């Protein structure tokens, strides 16, 4: 069976950016890019379809509603105590707790979602595509679905150093 993925290596980030732009225009599904440092342009090109922010907003709403329900239940329904002459249901002191709990739950759940989606968990052996990824080389990993020969041609044109096929 033929290996599943095309792996192209780049030494120059500008070339990689060119290649990514062209592949994106042709709607080729890029699996991942591994690199020694972050590149904002690349990040923008690759993650523009991330749904994580929407998940975060959802978690935030869930957090606010649930903690409000909890506080309402404890301080109004289950065990109402009057202190300081304030009404039993008073909103202002709840705001701080709602705010902080919203941050806490959103942060934890978003991190968990990200790790779940990216299949990262403690104890997992590191999946390093090549030792030189920690040095000076970018790796672009592609599916071989579409038209491998044409894609390889493009990659070569855009300045890929080396194009291999690998099972990842």
């Amino acid at each position, binding site marked *: 069976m033929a290996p599943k993925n095309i792996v192209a290596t780049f030494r120059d980030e500008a070339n990689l950016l060119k290649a990514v732009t062209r592949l994106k225009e042709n709607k080729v599904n890029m699996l991942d890019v591994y690199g020694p440092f972050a590149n904002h342009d690349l990040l923008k090109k690759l993650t523009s379809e991330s749904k994580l*922010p929407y998940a975060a907003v959802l978690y935030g709403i869930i957090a606010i509603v649930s903690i409000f329900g909890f506080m309402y239940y404890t301080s109004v329904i289950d065990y109402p105590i009057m202190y300081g002459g304030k009404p039993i249901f008073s909103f202002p*002191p709840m705001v701080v707790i709602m705010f902080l709990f919203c941050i806490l739950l959103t942060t934890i759940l978003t991190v968990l979602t990200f790790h779940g989606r990216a299949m990262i968990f403690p104890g997992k052996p590191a999946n390093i595509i090549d030792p030189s990824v920690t040095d000076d080389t970018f790796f672009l990993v592609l599916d071989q679905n579409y038209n491998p020969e044409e894609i390889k041609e493009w990659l070569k044109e855009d300045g890929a150093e080396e194009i291999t096929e690998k099972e990842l």
Partner: protein
Amino acid sequence: METTYTPKKNMNLLFAGMILIGIVAVITGFISDTQRTWANILLNNYYFITIAMGGLLFYSIQYITNSGWSAVIQRVPQALGGFLPVSAVLMLLLYFGLPQVYEWAQPGITETDKLIAHKEPFLNVPFFMIRMVLYFALFLAAGYMLRKYALLQDKQNDLKFHEKSRYYAQVYIFIGAIFFSFASKDWIMTIDSHWYSTLFGFRNMVLSMYYGVAAIILIILYLRSQGYFKEVNDAHFHDLGRYLFRFSIVYGYLWFMQFLIIWYANIPELTVYYQPRFLGEWQFIFYAELIINFAIPFMVMMSDELGKKPKVLTTISVLLLIGLWMNIYLQIMPGSYGPVKFGFVEVGMWLGYAGLFLGITFFALSKAFLIPKNHPYLEESLHHHI
């Protein structure tokens, strides 16, 4: 790079017309209701001082943090500061209306009001005016130095002028942060002379940058529509939008900090400020202001994509400038005037001041290169992208 802005003739006519409306409004105001007019003079002075101050504080922060991205737009916040000398004159005119606005300045009040009598060594008319002169002297001196070295750098490509600008930016941020907080307390907080909040000055000082950025965005977008500032790209707007987003959070935070502590402690001395606003007839403006200044910018600017669209930025900035007016209206009017009134006097005087402010700002913009020629970070700013 050496473009200069030349104001259109009909723009100047428009500003002159606005100032004329303002003068008519002042005259009708003095005929019908002097107290309301003096309160409005203070309101509009403070409104535009806030924006000018916000512009210069923003400008100083760019220098202190060695920010590269903002070099291309830095003439706009600087031009906003051009209003300060004029505002100093207009603010000193308030001397004639002090008893109309400030309860503590009314003659003979110290005999009937023990608390004001106790505060009298600080809150008396001569000392108040001395402090006002001092504040403006400091603002103007430091602001002038900032302007001077920025212009010198245009003429001569020398890094030492940049170092000087950096030095005076530090001076300005020190002076602005401390003395604009004090000035806010002096000019606005003492209207409710029985009430005090330690957060008040700091809050108004920090928020001046919020509204300053809104004004900067509007001016840049206007200049772009006139064919200038082609160098300003998406990333610059993105950064300015981030400023709005951050400050909307700061606004919510400081607003709530002041409110919650007073609400919780429930001391009559402190709740006297919130009673008419929170429960009385000012309730509508109280909530509307919170929605305009906090809720809408916070929800809209949260989105990264929306936050850099010029149309969205324009809408939010215009809303914020309305929000600033409501914010100051709510701080000044209940204590100094009384009933909720909104009419020709308010609108006309705001228009007059806005005409004056815009005229001076665009005049200051036209006096120098629109893009600082020899700024060391200019190259970085032109290629700014995120």
